[in-house]
């Protein structure tokens, strides 16, 4: 009962803090941003401004990791599972490495790997999707059927299958996740482009004698950009979660590289002793995905022109 009360209290405190952070961030941004952007930002709901604040914070942590972290990524600095102290802000992990430094480097590694993977999945999926919609005919048929088959197997299961075959390493994981996620991007890019290809101005551009690539990049891409950018945010979340899940299962980013998913796994035993520290890396994953989702939610809402 006491635990429940305390939990609810913490939840309330977190929600209020998030709202205040979002409000402050929006207030600061609207001051310093140029007039155009400021007007746009002022219309952002609190959840979206909170999301943006968190994303900026993660970017700063990722870029400044070596200056923020008091110890090295792989440095063993003390005994195992030492409690938090002024020297080790969050204590030490299962091998005696500083938890706080690991967390900072973990954010840097996981976020950058997730970003690379998403970009790769996006490059492949979006280009093929736009191509399929523009060219249509047998290329479209072929690509679409291949994607159908690849999507008939649940993503995590397929990732596990492919990782068994190619072996577990960071590069392999990036390629496997990018391959599987690019099928989802392909579907969306193709569906979006399908509606654009039938427009009159595309017809005009074709008659003007524009080549295929120019047609895709200059005519179709700009008009498909809004949903694709939103999809990029969502994809990033899924990729980030996939990487964390695989690393948590011990099949993704391999030690001694610091990473959020495997940190949870390595220190999970502490939870049964009532320590919160193993929840922090998991919470760091959750916080970033929630933040991106809030921003994407706002962008989709704006793009769809829905007014409730």
């Amino acid at each position, binding site marked *: 009962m006491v635990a429940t009360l305390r939990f609810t209290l913490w939840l309330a405190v977190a929600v209020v803090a998030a709202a205040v952070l979002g409000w402050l961030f929006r207030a600061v941004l609207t001051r310093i941003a140029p007039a155009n952007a400021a007007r746009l930002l002022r219309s952002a709901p609190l959840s979206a401004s909170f999301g943006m604040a968190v994303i900026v914070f993660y970017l700063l942590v990722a870029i400044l990791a070596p200056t923020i972290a008091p110890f090295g990524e792989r440095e063993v600095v003390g005994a195992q599972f030492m409690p938090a102290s002024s020297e080790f802000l969050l204590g030490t992990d299962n091998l005696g490495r500083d938890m706080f430094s690991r967390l900072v480097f973990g954010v840097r590694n996981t976020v950058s790997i997730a970003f690379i993977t998403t970009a790769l999945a996006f490059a492949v999926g979006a280009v093929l999707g736009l191509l399929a919609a523009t060219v249509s005919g047998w290329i479209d048929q072929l690509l679409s059927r291949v994607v159908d088959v*690849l999507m008939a197997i649940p993503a995590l299961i397929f990732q596990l299958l492919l990782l068994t*075959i*190619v072996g577990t390493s960071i590069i392999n994981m990036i390629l496997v996740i990018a391959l599987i996620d690019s099928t989802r991007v392909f579907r969306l890019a193709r569906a979006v482009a399908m509606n654009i290809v039938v427009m009159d101005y595309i017809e005009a551009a074709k008659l003007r004698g524009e080549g295929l690539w120019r047609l895709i990049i200059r005519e179709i891409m700009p008009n498909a950009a809004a949903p694709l950018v939103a999809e990029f945010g969502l994809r990033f979340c899924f990729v980030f979660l996939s990487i964390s899940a695989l690393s948590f299962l011990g099949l993704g980013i391999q030690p001694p590289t610091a990473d959020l998913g495997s940190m949870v796994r390595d220190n999970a035993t502490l939870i049964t002793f009532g320590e919160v520290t193993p929840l922090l890396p998991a919470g760091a994953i959750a916080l970033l995905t929630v933040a991106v989702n809030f921003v994407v*939610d706002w962008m989709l809402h704006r793009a769809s022109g829905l007014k409730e």
Partner: protein
Amino acid sequence: MSDIWWMILRRLALGVLTLFVVTLLIFGAIQLLPGDPAQAILGQAATPETLAALRTELGLDLPAWQRYLNWISGVLHGDFGVSLANKRPISELIAGRLANTLFLALYAAVIAVPLSLALGILAALWRGSWFDRAINVLTLSSISFPEFFVAYILIFWLAQSGLFPSISNIPPGAPLAEKLYRTFLPALTLTLVVTAHMMRMTRAAIINLLASPYIEMARLKGMGPTRVIVHHALPNALAPIINVVALNLAYLITGVVVVEVVFVYPGLGQLMVDSVAKRDIPVVQAAALIFAAAYILLNLAADVLSTLSNPRLVNKR
């Protein structure tokens, strides 16, 4: 009447075809491995003798199509081959674990489906209210949580105080009540993860319908909002809702993998993860096939049921 049967038969045929292609893919993926799979499995430990022995064991001395036929006919007879790691027949390894996994997924589904439908309908009924907004933020957050985060929060919160066990090992022959008690935390984790999706989609499906003219008519007649939603909107929202439920049950299948690992639950997902680490290819193939088949089956069921729930689609020429 015969139209419906034809439709179901066509869908079934399509499902079987998909399943066939998926078996080809699962089997073929291993053939794509550059070089010799036996060499890749043995790695440093490869001597000419062990290589030759492993090749015969894997049937690599046969042509690929013959190996596929052997494998698939074995699978159809319930024989998945032999595990590379401990030489035991895979069907023996899988049998008990598959039942455990299905039990867990079913347990989660029984809680999650009514809960999320009720929440979705309530949120649609009171849309724009504080209840709706709170639910919106909560579900959006829980969608973006990794499964293991939810699981560890529950462990920290409920298992710490000794209410529920944090490790869901089931002693053989345990009565149902004890099984339910011991698997409560993993089932709750899955429920939380899946409820968010289902509830959001239910809400969206109903709100979509509320804009249609016949709902406005019902409202203008002076009908209460509850009656409008339950009697008028819900029957027409059935098709998307059935789809959402089935898709999320399919999602349970993959969610189960991580959750089983967190709670050390002896299910198929954990076996698969262990086998990936050991690169025990036949076991991974078998597990992937079972998961994929369940996934395809659920999608097929969703397709057929949502078509049946719409009279326009059933009587289509």
